[in-house]
């Protein structure tokens, strides 16, 4: 199994694992919720059932109160005989059955309680019977009535004031009333008797009532206690049941929580492992991307380097062949040379293709925006392929629609490149046929047109099935095409990229063995004829001003140097060659040149650094000595950078004589150089004798006056000391140390522009080393001391001024 497939499976398996675990977790959570709900509702329902016993207790209390109220009602009535006092008793009788039945219903489940309720009910029944008897007794009790009647009789007999008590009145009766007395006495006896009976009866009933009441109360308490016990038992049972349920719930909860926790840990572990893997993959991907980018960069650099490496010798072959063709040769040799020339040019074209392709791939091509004649380009392209077309027996023609603006604004080089590629292809693949290319301008907005360039041929055509891949890199219609016709297979791909780079589109239609038509549509601005850059006229015309001038060529490639020498010699121009920047600088110190051709890429000090040094340190101005860079065409930004560093023009490798003259002419017009007459002196040294020249010291200091001052003080001290020691050594005939001392103090003298002193010191050293006795060393040393006096005075003055 391939790695990506494995990775895909692995990814899937992780998704399945996590999915499954999540489902299990959800199920577990639901189970916990359900269990909690069920057990909670069990506990809640047990609480609601426990409210019933409380209701029964309330009923008992109510009945008990009612009984008490009824008893009181009866007692009060027996005394007052007021009917309103007996009403609560009757209300009790009418309700008691209902209340007892309610209690019985509430005790429905419990036989013991029911028996108790029945017993209470019976006792209440007994009470009612007694209370009724009491009521009857109280009604029959006429003691008071009899006493009243007797009192009336007494009043009627004696006329005793009413206010006296009945017995007093009875015993205060006169003897006349003896008959009546007897009757009354008899009545009294009756009354007393009756009263005694009723009292006995009442006492009996009261006793019975009291007993019943006590018994009822006992039964009530008994019932209540039983009920309370029952309620207590009931609650205890419930509590126990709840405890069991709760314990069960806890157990379940703990089990589920533990498994839930474990599950969560597992999920977290899997996710972390997955994330870590993902990070590792990402890091690997990033690394791979970086590597790919590096590889791409390396490839690009390699391509550029290789192109440069291949281009250089090919340029040499082409250039030297061109030079040889200038000579008088027999026809055979000329033909051979022409073949060499065209072959090497062809090879260069292929290298350009590769280079362009790599530039296009990295989008590094910068488009120009200049005014150009599209017809000129078409004429050039036609001229380029005319001979090849003739060889193929093919008619090559071009046309321009009358409505097309003659001058356009855009990148003519890219337009030309497209045309060269497409016309080149058509000519290559068309035998005994016709190749025609033409342009039509279609206005899209004021000042803007779409240029429709059509390239039609009657060549071998392309199989329809290949049309969609024909613009891909390294593609040709058939593998055999490459073998038969050659080429890199990059041409169409480059054309497509170039077209798109300019905001255009490209279409192709073709039929096998019938021909191909390619249409490019590219937007351009309309231009102005006067702004067209005039190309250098065809026959190489050596600017007259060049002849007899001195040119320095700096290039590490021997071929190039030789080619320059060959061309420049023929032009009668004196030239010096330098292999690298160091050599160039050394030559420049000693000789004066009118123009420098400088290779940009050189080992050691490169062209840019050398040029900067020439401008900044050697102070050779641009009009005095322009510098032309030999390089691949630089982008606009680079170009500006070079210009700012003192470069005045560019000569693209590989170059022809024509390009060389063009570059020289361009630089001359840009810098305003009118190559000056060679001055007699070949040295740039402007050191004047006798007077110090501190310009270089100031330049080096970078504006640090303190540094200049220190250096000058140091110069006077070390040189003075050195001179004295030298003089002493000469006096003592220690010539070797004297020469060393002289040698040692020369450079500072030269640096501060003390030329006269420097020359004296040089003569002293030479005199000693060459054992030359033509000059007196003492005299020379004396002169040196004198000259140093002059110089040091001037320098001291300068230091004083600085302060």
């Amino acid at each position, binding site marked *: 199994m391939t790695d990506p497939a494995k990775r895909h499976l692995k990814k899937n398996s992780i998704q399945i694992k996590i999915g499954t675990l999540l489902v299990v977790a959800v199920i577990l959570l639901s189970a916990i919720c359900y269990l909690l709900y069920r057990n909670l509702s069990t506990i809640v329902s047990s609480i609601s059932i426990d409210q019933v016993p409380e209701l029964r207790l309330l009923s008992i209390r109510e009945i008990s109160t009612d009984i008490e109220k009824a008893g009181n009602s009866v007692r009060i009535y027996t005394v007052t005989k007021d009917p309103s006092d007996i009403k609560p008793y009757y209300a009790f009788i009418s309700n008691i059955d209902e209340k007892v039945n309610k209690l019985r219903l509430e005790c429905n489940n419990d036989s013991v309680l029911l028996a108790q309720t029945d017993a209470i009910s019976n006792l209440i029944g007994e009470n009612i019977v007694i209370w009724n008897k009491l009521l009857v007794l109280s009604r029959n009790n006429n003691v008071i009535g009899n006493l009243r009647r007797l009192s009336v009789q007494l009043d009627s007999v004696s006329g005793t004031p009413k206010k006296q008590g009945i017995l007093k009145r009875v015993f205060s009766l006169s003897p006349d009333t003896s008959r009546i007395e007897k009757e009354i006495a008899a009545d009294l006896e009756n009354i007393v008797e009756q009263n005694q009976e009723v009292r006995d009866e009442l006492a009996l009933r009261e006793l019975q009532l009291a007993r019943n009441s006590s018994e009822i109360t006992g039964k009530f308490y008994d019932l209540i206690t039983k009920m309370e016990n029952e309620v207590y038992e009931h609650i205890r049972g419930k509590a126990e049941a709840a405890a069991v349920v709760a314990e069960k719930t806890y157990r379940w909860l703990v089990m589920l929580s533990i498994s839930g926790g474990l599950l969560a840990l597992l999920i977290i572990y899997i996710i972390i492992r997955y994330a870590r893997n993902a990070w590792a993959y990402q890091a690997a991907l990033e690394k791979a991307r970086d590597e790919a980018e590096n590889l791409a960069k390396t490839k690009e650099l390699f391509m550029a380097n290789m192109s440069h490496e291949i281009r250089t010798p090919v340029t040499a072959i082409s250039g030297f062949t061109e030079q040889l063709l200038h000579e008088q040769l027999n026809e055979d040799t000329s033909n051979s040379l022409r073949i060499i020339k065209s072959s090497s040019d062809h090879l260069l074209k292929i290298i350009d293709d590769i280079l362009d392709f790599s530039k296009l791939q990295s989008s590094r091509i910068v488009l120009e925006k200049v005014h150009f004649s599209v017809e000129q380009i078409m004429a050039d392209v036609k001229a380029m392929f005319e001979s090849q077309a003739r060889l193929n027996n093919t008619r090559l023609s071009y046309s321009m629609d009358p409505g097309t603006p003659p001058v356009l604004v855009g990148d003519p080089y890219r337009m030309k490149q497209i045309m060269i590629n497409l016309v080149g292809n058509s000519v290559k693949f068309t035998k005994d046929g016709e190749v025609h290319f033409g342009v039509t301008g279609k206005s899209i907005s004021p000042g803007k047109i779409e240029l429709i360039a059509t390239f039609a041929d009657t060549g071998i055509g392309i199989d329809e099935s290949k049309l969609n891949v024909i613009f891909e890199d390294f593609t040709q219609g058939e593998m055999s095409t490459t073998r038969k016709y050659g080429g890199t297979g990059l041409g169409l791909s480059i054309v497509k990229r170039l077209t798109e780079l300019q905001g255009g589109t490209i279409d192709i239609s073709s039929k096998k063995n019938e021909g191909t038509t390619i249409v490019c549509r590219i937007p351009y601005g309309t231009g102005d004829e006067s702004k067209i850059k005039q190309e250098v006229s065809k026959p190489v015309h050596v600017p007259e001003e060049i002849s007899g001038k001195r040119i320095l060529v700096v290039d590490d490639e021997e071929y190039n140097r030789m080619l320059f020498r060959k061309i420049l010699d023929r032009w009668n121009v004196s030239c010096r060659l330098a292999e690298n920047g*160091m050599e160039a*600088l*050394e030559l420049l*110190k000693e000789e004066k040149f009118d123009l420098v051709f400088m290779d940009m890429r050189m080992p*050691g*000090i*490169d062209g*840019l*650094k050398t040029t900067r*040094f020439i401008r900044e*340190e*050697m102070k050779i101005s641009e009009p005095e000595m322009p510098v032309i860079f030999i390089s691949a065409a630089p982008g606009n930004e680079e170009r500006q950078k070079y210009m700012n560093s003192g470069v005045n023009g560019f000569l693209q490798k590989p170059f022809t004589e024509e390009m060389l003259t063009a570059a020289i002419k361009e630089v001359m017009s840009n810098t305003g150089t009118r190559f000056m007459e060679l001055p007699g002196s070949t040295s740039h040294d402007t050191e004047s004798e006798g007077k110090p020249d501190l310009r*270089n*010291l100031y330049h*080096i*200091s*970078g504006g640090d006056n303190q*540094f200049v001052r*220190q*250096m000058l003080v*140091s*110069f006077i*001290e*070390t*040189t003075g000391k*050195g001179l004295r020691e030298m003089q002493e050594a000469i006096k003592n005939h220690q010539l*070797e*140390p004297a020469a*060393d*001392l002289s*040698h*040692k*103090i*020369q*450079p*500072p003298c*030269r*640096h501060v*522009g003390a030329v006269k002193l420097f020359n004296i010191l040089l003569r002293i050293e030479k005199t000693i080393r060459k054992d030359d006795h033509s000059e007196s060393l003492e005299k020379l040393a004396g002169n040196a001391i004198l000259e140093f006096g002059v110089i040091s005075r001037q320098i001291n003055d300068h230091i004083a001024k600085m302060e």
Partner: protein
Amino acid sequence: MKKTIKVLVIEDNEYYSNLLSNAIQQSLNPMLVRGGYQLVLRSFTDAKEYIRKIKSKELESDYTAIFIDYYLGDGINASHVIKLLREQSCDALVVLLSQSKTVVEKGTGIPYDYFVVKDKFAPALCGLYLQQYIENKYSVSLGQ
């Protein structure tokens, strides 16, 4: 950690030695300002003393670049110093300076990378060579 650029200047003339040191410092300034590098500059005017110190291992010989005058007085020349340093496997850039080209034209018998005539451009040239060497060595650009 900062990369250390260790430069040795051996020039018996103090004035010229200062001039060289200044040029070296200036040429590396863009790099030092940018950070990541530090310059350690050692200059000696007494070659005899320097040779003694190097022989006794009082000084280390791990220089990045050496700027050395050919004639160092007391019958000592640059080849003595360079040979000694090469023996101690010092692979520094060697820039040889002298009053005239005759020294190199005669052949010095010592390996050096650049020869600079002590004219008024010499300090700037030394700076330029060092700059290019450092750019190549550390793949940095010191161009403005």
